Every structure is written in structure tokens, then in C-alpha cells.
């Protein structure tokens, strides 16, 4: 997407140059999803499709309320429904899944394409499609299993936290649409303060382990949850208990990176000579047809 200006960028994938420093007053934002207030109405999903102009194919019922069945290039957010038998008292835990906008984003760290993933000073992590090479490293780098690669255009997609709306002082479409204010949006500090009030209320109602999900393993997140059972986040459709960036990604970012870069450089040189000797790649009619099919 990339709708904030380049001046707002704090970090840029596969880039060693320092980011611009002239703007320094951005407030860190956060979306707070209060699972205890969520009724699973999917208004957030509809708003996401509307605002971002996305349309998934009509799917099937697979025996659950989750529809579409999973995140996809055209489904950036999704309600995940879990039935939990809490000692004879049934609970229906409904969690809105989507990008967590980590302070230390595994996707950005893993991304080898310069500027394909950026983090703004307000904390939003955004994919810049024209720089994306579709390698899928962001998928591997994400501890929450969020990005999806499109078969049609070979680009990675995920929630932008409506960076275009936020850039002009609006809340994300999902927060705007939520009828029960289960989705709050504001500065991260305000969201934490609001969460604390909610947690007091939940504890009064008998949820002794109610708490805020803002995992430190990824430096905290700009999408946070209020959970009734913060001691067991995995109850909520497998929300990771202690999310961390994969060791492989950490390694890639460390010692092996120069080596790999040398490898890429070599490939480029080989490619250049291939071009000189054999000429450019040409698209055949079959290629076109295949592309058409995928795009359809």
C-alpha cells in the first residue's frame, strides 16, 4: 500500500541507509481488540473488504463460522471462532485475526527486497507492492502466520492498519465499523490505559486472568488484544503464547547476510551475461493464457 510519505518511514526492508530524521513527532498508534466485547458480527471484515476494495471468491461452509476459511491476498482480517468448555461453562471465543504490526517486525527483517516492507514512525508495518518480489520470506518471518502471497500477481498482502486512513487522521475501517466498540484505535499509550480499565471490569466479572496481549518477544505490537484468559492466549485459535521471530530469520539478518548478498550479486552477473548471449526472455502465448487463468 504505502500511503504515508517516505518522510514518515522509520525502517525499510533490505536497506542499510539510515531513514529520514526530519520528522520526529509521530505518535505511536495502536488498535486494541477487546475480545471480551466482540460479538463476531464480521462488520470489521465487511468494512475491510469495502474500504480496501477487496473481493474474495464466494467460498463454502466447512463446518465452522469462520468465513472465508483463512486469510488470503483478498482477506486481510478474519474472525476466528473457538468453542471453549471452561469447567462446564461454555465460552465462545471470537478473535479478529490479522497483522499485529509488531514493533520488531519479523516480515520486515526477513524481506530481501529493498523497500518492499516499511515501518512508519507511528508503528504501522506496510507492504509496498511495487517493490515486492513475491519471495515469501515475510511469511516465514512472521510469528503470527499473517502475510499471504497472491498466485495472480506474486505479491505479498496483509492488513495495512488502513495506513491511508490513519495518515489523514481517521481510524482504520474495521474500528470505525465495529458496533460494540470491541475495536478501539488511538495512541498506544491511550490504548494501554483503556485496556487496563477493561481488565479491571473483567476481573470483577470473574475472569481472574484477564489481561493485555502485547507480546514483548516482538517488541510489543501495534495491534493488541484484551483477553479474558491472558494466561492462555493459545485458546484463541492458536494465538502464540510467546511469539518470536524465527531463528532462521535472525540468522539471516546476522552473519549469513553478506554471504547471501554476494550470492545474489553473482546471480545478477550471470543473468546479465545470459541476456547478452541469449537476448531477453519472451512471453509465449501459453504464458499469457496461464497468466490469464491465474488472474481470473
Amino acid at each position, binding site marked *: 500500500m504505502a500511503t504515508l510519505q517516505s518522510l514518515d518511514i522509520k525502517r525499510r526492508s533490505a536497506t542499510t541507509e539510515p531513514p529520514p530524521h526530519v520528522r520526529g513527532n509521530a505518535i505511536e498508534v495502536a488498535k486494541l481488540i477487546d475480545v471480551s466485547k466482540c460479538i463476531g458480527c464480521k462488520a470489521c471484515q465487511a468494512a475491510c473488504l469495502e474500504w480496501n476494495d477487496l473481493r474474495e471468491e464466494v*467460498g463454502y461452509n466447512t463446518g465452522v463460522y469462520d*468465513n472465508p476459511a483463512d486469510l488470503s491476498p483478498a482477506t486481510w482480517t478474519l474472525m476466528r471462532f473457538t468453542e471453549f468448555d471452561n469447567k462446564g461453562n461454555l465460552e*465462545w471465543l471470537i478473535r479478529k485475526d490479522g497483522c499485529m504490526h509488531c514493533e520488531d517486525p519479523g516480515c520486515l527483517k526477513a524481506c530481501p527486497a529493498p523497500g518492499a516492507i516499511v515501518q512508519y514512525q507511528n508503528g504501522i508495518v506496510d507492504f509496498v507492492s511495487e517493490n515486492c518480489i513475491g519471495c515469501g520470506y515475510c511469511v516465514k518471518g512472521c510469528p503470527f502466520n499473517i502475510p499471504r502471497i497472491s498466485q495472480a500477481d506474486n505479491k505479498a498482502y496483509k492488513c495495512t492498519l488502513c495506513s491511508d486512513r490513519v495518515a489523514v487522521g481517521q481510524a482504520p475501517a474495521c474500528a470505525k465499523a465495529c458496533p460494540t466498540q470491541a475495536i478501539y484505535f488511538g495512541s498506544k499509550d491511550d490504548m494501554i490505559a483503556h485496556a487496563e480499565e477493561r481488565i479491571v471490569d473483567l476481573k470483577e466479572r470473574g475472569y481472574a486472568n484477564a489481561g493485555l496481549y502485547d507480546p514483548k518477544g516482538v517488541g510489543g505490537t501495534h495491534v493488541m488484544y484484551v483477553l479474558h484468559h491472558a494466561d492462555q492466549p493459545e485458546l484463541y485459535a492458536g494465538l502464540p503464547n510467546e511469539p518470536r521471530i524465527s531463528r532462521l530469520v535472525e540468522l539471516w539478518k546476522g552473519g549469513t547476510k553478506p554471504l547471501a548478498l554476494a550470492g545474489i550479486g553473482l546471480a545478477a552477473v550471470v543473468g546479465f551475461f545470459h541476456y547478452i548471449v541469449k537476448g531477453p526472455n519472451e512471453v509465449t502465448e501459453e504464458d499469457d493464457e496461464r497468466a490469464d487463468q491465474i488472474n481470473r
Partner: protein
Amino acid sequence: MASLAPTFGRGAMTNHWNDIKNADVILVMGGNPAEAHPCGFKWVTEAKAHNKAKLIVVDPRFTRSAAVSDLYAPLRPGTDIAFLLGVMRHILTNDKIHTEYVKAFTNATFIVREGFKFENGLFTGYDETKRDYARGEWEYEIGEDGFAKVDPTLANPRCVLNLLKAHVERYTPETVEKICGTPKDKFLKICEHVASTGNGERSMTSLYALGWTQHSHGAQNIRCMAMLQLLLGNMGVPGGGVNALRGHANVQGITDLGLLTTALPGYLALPSQAEATYADHMKTRRFKPLRPGQTSFWQNYEKFFVSFQKAMFGQAATKENDWAYDYLPKWDTPYDVLKIVDTMYEGKLNGCIAQGLNVLMASAHKGKALQGLAKLKWLVVIDPLETETARFWENHGEFNEIDSAKVQTEVIQLPACTVAEEEGTFTNSGRNIQWHWKAANGAGESRSDLEIMAGIHTRLRALYAKEGGAFPDPIVNLSWNYARPEAPSADEVLRELNGYVLEDVKDPQDPNKVLMRAGTLVPGFGALRADGTTTSGCWIYTGCYTEAGNMTMRRSTDDPTGLGVYQNWGFVWPANRRILYNRASADASGKPWSTRKKYIAWNGSRWTGPDVPDYGPTVKPEASVGPFIMNPEGVSRLFTRGLMRDGPFPEHYEPFESPVANSLHEKVASNPVARVFKEDWKEFGKADKFPYVATTYRLTEHFHYWTKTHLINAILQPELFAELPEALAKEKGIGPGDWVRISSARGAIKCKAVVTKRLPTLTIHGKPTHVVGIPIHYGFVGTARKGHATNTLTPFVGDANVNTPEYKAFLVNVEKTTAPAGAPSV
């Protein structure tokens, strides 16, 4: 409507959406607002967040509302009355009622005739051949002064409260558990929460919808809650009330405008055949007070009726012709949707106009509706969307099996535009009439419903004017004073509903002084007259459009008390009163029951508060005028006399299809006065072949049969499914996403299985009983996956008072199966 009016005097949500935030306890039963009213449900969230309210959900299914509740209990579909009479027994035997309120503001102290009895499941006066009661004995003792006898000491065993105590005595927690399957500990816990509001300090709101109405005893389900709220003193107070959540944006509006086939706009009565003359009609509508000094507001019936006739027929309605009384049709029997479908099915209906109703999908027993439609000579469908009803003649394999070549019905589709493509008003659940502006032009050749109806009328009128006929008068004399007769504006219609002054009204004290000028809009229904000098198309709407402007356009967010009373937002009928019966928020002396629930109170010279008093603004408390001003008693009714067909007290009757006998009275299993057509008796299933209890409902992702035509809604919930309890699925070897065949005595459908802990296997009469849930919404037209009509399964019987079909409780069988022909299998 059918139970609230007999109890309180008016048939509408007593409080309003914003007021839910003032509740301390929210009881959701007979509805699922998180699912069906997610935007209104925000007020429940507010009450929880800012008022520390407890949310209780009682439902056969663990619903989306239950997902955010503090306390949930299951019950078997169709047993709400047993549950609620059990709650009433609990608060009566544990002395948790608000005694002072009950004595002052209900008919608890009224003495009932000796002849009235309840024995073996029947009230006095039952006639089995007619399936009806003679209701003469369901009445108070009337004294020589013409007033009802009362005993303020409650010593007389014939007092309403004592009869009620005796009536509910059978509904012990054990009996409730046996009938409803609700575990006793959960039931008692709920009783405690409910009882915590019977004191004037705290209040409970009841939120319900079609989960209560769609039963053969639907009106009595709601009656139970109305009575319970009276016993607790929760009527007329902030955060209280019995709140019917309406399923469409304008259901309240259409109800106000004469939805029932025996009603005229404003809840006036359409005369029946027994009322041949105007005098006959008025004879039973004098509504003389039953206690000294009471308001009995319906005494003004004639003013509203005459003003209505003047609005309808203008100069053709005169005193000499009894205000054109003969122009009104006189009904023989109510024509509800079941009756209409049955009449089609019998081949006795030539034509049908289906306006905004997808009757093929929405009627109970789809097979019968399909055969009925095929017997029509013509069918006009007025709808913005392509509907199954307009396409009933198409064969869609097992989704709609019909021999198209044999169908002779001529189908005419008139495309209507959607609400956003026309201006007009919505009347929401809280009776708030709100103007909406046109946002875009309608697509293609579509026209507004107003324009379509006007087009039909002007053409018919021209035909009648030219060709005459047996009785053209009502049509050629219909008042039609619009600038463009073929396209009246919503503004003109709303003015007409409000009403006009026809002749100068002079001050009786000073004939030179004109109180209201001819041609001006009537300021309020108090100004309507029975002498033909005023008009009003719907008297309860009077005041919505006055000389000061269109009140429904107001959008002020001023709420001086913070109680959610936005007096200058829209216009609420009646007379802009937001909470009905609000005088009951203060005790007999006019003092608020508590500081917390202070609303309308007597300040020594008048009634004041954030709302318009639902009461004479300067009537002194000493005058002992009751707060339920519509009722001749002045008080509300725990005992409804003869106003409901199936009893002055509610009683537990099994649904027409039930897995068990009625353990309270075996010989009277189901509602003894619910109407069943002859052919349909044999179409009820028994538990030997159909052992599972089924219920149907809406999903939040869809709206009836409309949104399946819309891509985003189809993406979010693409395909028909049924919800099965885990134990049943295990028994039958059914896994999540498998195809299942669900059958009832009337037909079968195929759909996907959602195996869930949220549907219970209850212990009923000691036996495990599975409950199966099936959403509606799918069909053979639209963008979502093609699916069977859920109403293929539902029984053809309705509520005893208003004939709303029993969609919520019936019997089915469930088997594992394979995909329907033509459905891709995934």
C-alpha cells in the same frame, strides 16, 4: 403487540434503544440482539461498561449474544412460558416483588368473577368444536357503581394476585428443569439476578424478538415477561421495560400503519362483518373507565376514527353517511400470511401482489406455498431484488422442484428502488420516526413503492370512473390531493398522516378567537375532533409534522440528563414520549422510587423530568389517576380479562410438534385455540419418526433473503448449514462440513453440518433430547451458494392471537448424506 397492548395499553417497545444503557440487568431471551441487531446491541455494551450491568442470555443455542454474557442458560425451544412462570413463582414465593408498585399500578387487587377457573389445562369457557373460548367469565366483579371491585388488602382469594400465585404454584424449579431442560442451579442463579431488580433501586430490561413471537403461543411468551416486569416494578422506569426489537428498520412503522389485516392505522380497528353499521362499531369502543377518575384514553376513539375517515375520503366522508363507514371493507376472518397461502393452496385466490415479501421463502411449509403460487392466475412482485417468489415457476432441481410447463400463472415484476433511493421515514423499535433522505437515483426502470402504488391506484381509479362497477365509490372518492397524483411525495404523505385542520376551530369561551386555522397542520392528537373538522391518517403520528416543520428531520444530540433522552432527535409517538408509562417511575405520591432511577416526578405543581410525561402534565398525585392511561382500569393488567384469545394468564403448552407429552395436562398438549387448517393436522410429525427438536433463525452476516444477492455478505457466510450438538453428530457419524439431510413431516433439505458445543443435548422428562438449529437466508436466486429453503421444514400453524408461524420449534430427523445434485462438493 398482541400481548403488550392487553397488558399495558399500547403494543410497542416500551422503552427505547438508548435507554438500554440504563439497565442493571439485561435479560436476553426470545431474541439474539448481538446477531440480529448488532448496532443496537452497542447499548448493551454501554450498560455493561458504564453501569456494571449483568447480561443474562437464555436461549436454546449458545448465541453470539451469549458469547459476551455474564450468565447463560439453555432451554428447549418452545418452553419459555414454563421457564418464566417458574421465575414468577420464585419471586412471588420469596417475596421479591415490588409490592408497593404492584398494588398501586397493576390490577393485582382487582377481584375476578367466581365463574373464572383454570382446570386440566383449560380456562373456563372452552368449546372444543370451535377451538375457541367464550371469554365472558374472564372478567372482574363489577360493583353497582359500574366500577370493578378491588380489595387493597389482598385478603380476598379472588384477587388477581392471589389467583396468579395459585396459577404459577405448579412451576417449581424441578418442573422447569423437567420441561425446559434448564439445569436447576442455573435457573435459580438467573432467578436471583432477576429478583435483584424488584425494588425501585435497580432495573432490568427485557430484550426479545422473533424468538418469542414465532410460536403457537408467541403472544403469551411475551405476556409472561410483561407480567414479570410489572411484578418487579420495572415498567416506566429508565433501564426497564419490555422491549420488542424489530427485525427490519421499519417494522414498527408498518405495524403502526395497519399491518394486521384486522387493524387500521394507529391501532384503530378495521370493522368486522358483525359491525354492519357505524353505530355497531362505536358501541364496543366507548371504553368507559373501570375505576373512578381514570383517563381511559381510548374514550377518544371516535375522534381518531373520524379524523382517519376524513383523511381517507375527504369531502365524501360526511356526518350524514357516517363518515363513509360503508367504504371500509368488513373482515370475515384475519388474512395473515398462513391464511393467504392456504387460500392460494385451496385455489381460492386469483391474484396476489407480493410487495417486499419473498413469500415462497418466508412462509412456513414452502411446499404448500409453491403449490399455492402455481394456482394463481397472476402474481405481481414488487421488489428491488430478484426473488425466488418471482421465479417460483423455474425448476431448480431439488432446490425448487416444479413442472414449469404446467404453471399458468402470469408473473409481473415491478422493480422497486431501495430505501436509499427514495425519501421517507423509518420508525424504529423505540417508536422514533426518523426522516431519511434520498442518496442516489434508483437503478434502471425502478420506481419508489409510493410511485408504484400510486401508478396502480390512478389507473384503477380511471377504470372505475369510466366503467363503474358494483361499488366504485371507495376508490373514486379516495382522497388523493397530491401535487403529482401519479407520484406523491413522502413529504405530502407524512403531512397527511399527521393531519390537517379542515375548518377554523374557535375558542368555545370566545368565538372571535380562532384556536386552529383551516388548512394548518394539527399540532397534536389532543386537537383531533369527531365532528369532521380535522383529518389524521394515523392519529398516533400526529405531532410529527406541524406548522413548526417536519419533526422527523430533527437531529439534535442534546441529552441534558445523560440518560439517553434525545428529545429533539426525530419524533417519537405518542407525543414524543421516549419511555412509555413513565409516570410509574414515581410512587403514588409522585416521588421517584429512587434517586438512581429518577425520571418523571411531581414537583408540587406539575410532572417534570427529561421526558414528556405519559400522563396529564398537571394532574395531581392525589387524584389517583393510574399511569397506564390507555387502560380503562388506569393500571396495567396481570390478568388480561378477555383481551387475549388463549387465556388471561399464560400457561405452558407444548409446541404443535413436541418430543414429549405435556406433563402438566396430557389431554391439552398444545395451545387449544391456535388455528390449524383441516389439511394441516395430518402434516404434523411425531417423535418416533422425527426425534429431534429444531429451531430456525437469522445470521448476522445476512438479512433475510436479501443479502444473499450481495457479494460481500455471500463471502462472509456463503452456504446453508445446520448446527448439530456434538453428541448427535457422534451418534450419526457426522463430521464438520459433511452434508446432512434434515427432514420434517413436510419436506427435506440438504445442507452442511456445523458440529458444535453451542447446541445442547438437553435432558427433557429424564431423556436426552438433541436440539438442531437451522439458519434461513439461502435459496435458488442470488450470489451465495444455491441452497434449499429452510422453510421447507417448518409447520403450518401460528400463534393463537396473531398467527405468526411457529418457525421456532418443530421436529426433524437428521441423516448423513451426499451433496445435492448440482452443488459442487467441498
